[in-house]
């Protein structure tokens, strides 16, 4: 009887089929961003991307200047690619599982700027802390 791990399993070959179309979509979205300021988002999870597709995307877009890490409900990585205005966004869960991966074409991804309510809440917390410090500092 053959051991299971001796059965040779070869993965099916998968050429880069979708990346070229994606790159053209990105170019068009950048055009639109420059002209009208419209932001665009491409959900990479909804497309069948092979390893070759990913490699081609990575290679073509390159690495940019900004790399951010967001820690909320697990970690998220927000990286600008070598093409300014194109952001590679990866959200992971608390267990480190990739939830969604997208390319955002915008000046800054929407999730980055601090929200007014959150700022207000933070300000409130800051004031409380200050008050506590002033009252209890001595």
């Amino acid at each position: 009887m053959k051991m299971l791990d001796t059965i040779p399993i070869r993965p099916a070959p998968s050429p880069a089929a979708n990346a070229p179309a994606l790159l053209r979509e990105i170019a068009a979205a950048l055009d639109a961003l420059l002209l009208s300021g419209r932001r665009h988002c491409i959900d990479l999870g909804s497309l069948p991307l092979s390893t070759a597709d990913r490699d081609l995307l990575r290679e073509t877009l390159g690495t940019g200047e900004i790399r951010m890490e967001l820690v909320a409900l697990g970690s998220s990585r927000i990286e600008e690619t070598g093409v300014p205005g194109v952001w590679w966004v990866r959200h992971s869960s608390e267990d480190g599982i990739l939830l969604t991966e997208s390319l955002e074409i915008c000046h800054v991804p929407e999730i980055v700027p601090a929200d007014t309510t959150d700022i207000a809440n933070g300000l409130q917390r800051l004031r409380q802390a200050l008050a506590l410090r002033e009252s209890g500092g001595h």
Partner: protein
Amino acid sequence: MDETILDAFRQNGLSRRAFLKFCAATASLLALPPAAAAAMAEKLASTPRPTVIYLSYQECTGCLESMTRSFSPTIEHLMFNSISLAFNDTLQAAAGEAAEAARKEAMRKAWGKYILIVDGAVPMGAGGAYCVAAGQSAVDDLRHAAQGAAAIIAVGTCAAFGGVPYAAPNPTGAVPVSEVIRDRPIINVSGCPPIPEVMTGVVVYYLSFGMPALDRQGRPLTFYGNTIHDRCYRRPFYDEGRFAHTFDDEGARNGWCLYELGCKGPVTYNACATLKWNQGTSFPIQSGHGCLGCSEPDFWDKGGFYRPLPAATGHWPRGEVLGGAALGGTVVGVGAAALARSRQQAAAAKSAKEVSSPSPKEDSHEH
């Protein structure tokens, strides 16, 4: 109870960023266009956290087991942030009369507004006696609970289409929820079990956008809009005519199409091929086994899991039946020929008589 979902997030110490991330992940899961994440965020930010009642009848708890393994949105997020799970036999701490009392209280408070999740088929046989809890039969319980529900989500193939209990010979007279309740919107989330993210995703979708678009089987098109076959990574092999003929042949090792081994992918609507299972790890076909068609009605009774789709479903004895047809045809053919021959003989005899006594008119010809 008018606390919104965003409020719930904040109360749990989460920022709007986390909320946006939740929405983005969920929209991606639901295969909504990226712009819908923003719409969802807006809607959920203002939607009151709904009450959910989860009832279990003839089922195996496989669906709930599956649901608790959802990674996006996680069941924890659902329970703590998005919904108020007021009753679930298995998950709640309370038991017995305390549990029943809690349920009654929750239903009374949210009467007409709560979401009812039903898991399992409903036995109708013997007056519903095959499934009784707290002195009430499943069918009566369901009828009552449904009256106060804004919508019903039938989770699992048993609740949606009858599933295992409904399979022939169906000794308990089991029926799907849709045969008991006809006056409430029902979303069928079929599968044995359904994909965890599909179950949680449907709940979030319902909260964000209301009733989803359904197919004819009452399933959300978002998850059940395509067949496994159409989204299968092995589909190119089908198109090239490359098939595994046995589970251990060259084709199977090469990962070729499992159609010949009985894969029901072409007629099975589900999201297995795209969402996959166990946090996107794999799905049956990727693991080398054909699709059983578990999200389709009557999948137990379709002629066999390993019979190829185009094969006849009936298990009639081919040789005997067709041989009999050939024999019958031969007998009828011989009969028809015998009849024709006897008519020919009669015609020949009559014509011979005419020739032997020629008609005077023909005879009297002169030039």
